[in-house]
């Protein structure tokens, strides 16, 4: 059957074991790629002719910004799957995404603002991308707030899933309205980071940290998913066996 893999993903014990097996496959490549990418970006790559050394924060900033949107999408897709197929594990995935996404978004904001201080001469510029990230952070916080406000886990799952799906529909609208708003109001005084032709010794480390951050998200998501499954299924008998098995192996 072509769909058995999907049905098996609905089973918490299977997912719990699978997540444990997959975690190192994400974590090690993530560590290698991030270390290598940061070495390439911070040591090997030449300084920028305009921005000097300051541009190097982009090796953390850009991947964080990529991840913020990717985590939101993952969260909304997982929430949608949970809502449509009533799949508890998918809801657990969505719940595990929220704090990770908020953290990536926060990192993108902080690094962006630190970069802005020397480059723009101010910590905060109402740049469309920064503003968009800020709104995204509010959406993550709203999602987490809604989850926290509802005690019953299953209801929290489904209510917050509706919010995540509504939020993802709104993300492109917010994106374009913020771009539009900014292009109308902002004078051309702000220096923009222009990167049309990035030399390969700058670009390759960026792609490495980008992929590394993606895998890092995968690894952290798997760890959080296991914790989430553990806390949800704490009354189930398979938990006792699984945890006992781990204790024996360790």
């Amino acid at each position, binding site marked *: 059957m072509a769909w058995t893999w999907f049905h098996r993903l609905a089973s918490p014990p299977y997912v719990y074991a699978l997540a444990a097996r997959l975690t190192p496959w994400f974590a090690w490549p993530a560590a290698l790629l991030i270390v290598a990418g940061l070495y390439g970006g911070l040591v090997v790559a030449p300084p920028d002719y305009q921005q000097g050394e300051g541009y190097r924060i982009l090796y953390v900033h850009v991947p964080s910004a990529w991840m913020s949107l990717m985590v939101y999408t993952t969260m909304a897709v997982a929430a949608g799957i949970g*809502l449509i197929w009533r799949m508890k594990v998918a809801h657990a995935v969505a719940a595990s995404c929220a704090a990770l996404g908020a953290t990536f978004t926060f990192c993108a904001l902080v690094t962006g603002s630190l970069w802005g201080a020397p480059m723009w001469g101010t910590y905060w510029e109402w740049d469309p991308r920064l503003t968009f990230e800020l*709104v995204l952070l*509010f*959406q993550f*916080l*709203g999602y987490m*707030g*809604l989850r926290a*406000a*509802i005690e019953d886990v299953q*209801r929290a799952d*489904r*209510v917050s899933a*509706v*919010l995540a*799906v*509504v*939020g993802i*529909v*709104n993300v492109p*609208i*917010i994106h374009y*309205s*913020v771009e*539009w*708003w900014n292009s*109308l109001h902002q004078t051309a005084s702000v220096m923009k980071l222009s990167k049309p032709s990035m030399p390969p010794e700058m670009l390759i480390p960026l792609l490495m940290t980008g992929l590394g951050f993606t895998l890092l998200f995968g690894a952290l998501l798997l760890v959080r998913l296991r914790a989430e499954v553990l806390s949800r299924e704490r009354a189930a008998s398979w938990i006792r066996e699984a945890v006992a098995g781990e204790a024996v192996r360790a």
Partner: protein
Amino acid sequence: MSEGLTPALEAARLVMARDLHLAFRRPGEVLQPLVFFAIVTTLFPLAITPELAQLRQVAPGVVWVAALLASLLALEFLYRDDAHDGTLEQYALSGQSLTWLLFAKTASHWLLTGLPLAIMAPVAALALGAPKGSVSGIIASVAIGSIALSLLGAIGASLTLGVRRSGVLLSILTLPLAIPVLIFGARATQLAIAGEDIAAPLYLLGAIDVLGITLAPLAASAAVRISLE
């Protein structure tokens, strides 16, 4: 029973008539968001400056932020009583589409808050130094924009139905979603005050309305059903 209406339209008419009746029995509750709007717009000249030339610059933002907050405040009345006394459960069990009935409720909610706000907004804008010629443009922008605010608010209100002390959470959920409406609405108001053509932002607001009318009642009814379980 009025003749010639399909059962669905008749149900929607009854829901709207009931909501409007109840609201007019307690006019104080309907007026509260409007009083709030008036007070908030009064605070800005006190906080910034009484000079009309400067106030005219910030008038679109003041009017829209105040309208946004007032409509948020008004969301309290949208479902709260109906959730308490079981009316929403009856709607869900009535055999009519819950999505449709919630859409009717949202429509009457807009009649009770969005429309009065649209009529009050130019008064506030005039007090902030907007020229007389901008009145029709401001009414249009707030009227069209507040449709989207009511629809987004319906989603927020239904998501927070089962939550105790939901006011702050409701704002945190609804305000980020309302940002596009704020941007285009304030832009339209700004153009109206400057005496320019406001068609472009109004079209965008209209597009958001159409999207909201299509999708928001679905999301709201999904959330209401979950919280009734």
